[in-house]
């Protein structure tokens, strides 16, 4: 993932200008989250597995 380009585009979209130090730290954070998230994102889920946060049973 090209996080530099992503952060520049996303901060422009969200009207969230960042100075160089914050921009670098945000990119660092995203690079830290990516390897944690990736195996979860790759996990196969059937289409009928829908979000359901509350226990009913």
């Amino acid at each position, binding site marked *: 993932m090209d996080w530099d380009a992503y952060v520049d585009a996303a901060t422009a979209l969200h009207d969230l200008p960042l100075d160089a130090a914050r921009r670098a730290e*945000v990119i660092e954070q995203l690079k830290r*989250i990516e390897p944690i998230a990736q195996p*979860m994102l790759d996990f196969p889920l059937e289409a009928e597995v829908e979000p359901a946060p509350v226990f009913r049973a």
Partner: protein
Amino acid sequence: MLPQSIGEYTRLIAAREASAAELVEAALQRIATRDSAINSFTAITAERARAKAREIDTLRSNGAPLPPLAGVPYAVKNLFDVKGLTTLAGAKLHERNAPALRDATLVTRLDAAGAVLIGATNMDAYAYGFTTENTHYGATRNPHDRERVAGGSSGGSAAAVAAGFACFSLGSDTNGSIRVPASFCGLFGLKPTFGHLSRAGAYPFVASLDHVGPFARSAHDLAMVYDVLQGPDALDPACAQRAVQLTTPELDEGVKGLRIAVLDDYFHTWAGPDARVAVERAAAALGAHDRATLPEAQRARAAAFVITAAESGSLYLKALRERPDAFEPLSRERLTAGALLPAHWYLRAQRFRSWFQASAQRLFERYDLVLAAATPCCATRIGAETMELNGVVVPVRASIGLLTQPLSLIGLPIAVAPLWTPHGLPIGVQLIAPPWREDLCLNAARALELAGVARSPIAEIAS
């Protein structure tokens, strides 16, 4: 005069050995002379506490029946609304907000039960952290070793109880923020089933994952407080419409006949030596010989991580844009990164959560209760950035919640029971039950206490 339990407070008052007013003054005096060493409170509600104590003493002198928590001092994490106080949620960002117009639902219920609110407690800013190292309000120190953190994010609430300032307290737990400080401060803590206790009037952090619950120094006190807190509340859209299920009457039922297992795999891998010993001792005392696997816990932790980042980032996006300088430096860029996460990641995490929840339900067809350590290790040192865990160097703040995060993702009810290591520090064991079975968690905590395995002494703090 420092009563050790709810029962001691109510007995002293009922027997007229002490008035509620005297007990409140003693609590306020202890805080005034000792909290400078701990930094557990951000506000003391002395006037309110004295008024409540007078109300209890008037009831007593009129011969009226006393409510169940009459005269018992308690504290709340400063994300709970307390009428007349600005709700900080640990954040300088919120200091200019107007004072709360009314109490949070749980504070109202405790008030009706006669409990005496003595103050609001320190926390990680926004509840985003596991150490209560708050740049603006200072770090809360662990009463059992002041060089160490109290855990977080409900660190002030835990420290206040461990230091004997309050008899019990309220915290919140999104990824472990009740269970981690209970472990580090040597307390009993309860994170109920998601939706079992009302969050109305508790400042949000991650709406999909936020829970609220109590800390206490005994399983009995924990159950008593939990029973008072229960009940549906239309003001919290996630709060279940369920009747109160009292846990105190059957607390001494024990765990006989329950099928109990120790969680292995991920929950063993990320437990350090002290944590593993604690789990083994708890398992032996509860007669748990089986090992059970909750598959994909690592991915569950990832899902909790993504949901937390995305929802908290979105919640604070406007303020990140308008007042970035007012933010906690330890979490500002984490929040910013969260606000930028792709929607696909967030939705995938929410869907994974459903998968994981179904997987846990299958586990609970075979077991009534499962155990895991609450934290990978005992309380870490204030300011520590990294630690070694089973030979791997890991970042402290991101790793303390490894054992709690996958479980709160699916809202399971969990009590923490405090065990003690040979080197004198506490470490907690999570007692994990199927949804809505807080009674099983609490009975197991009580059983560990009766077996002499779990205990929660007040820390010695010189004035």
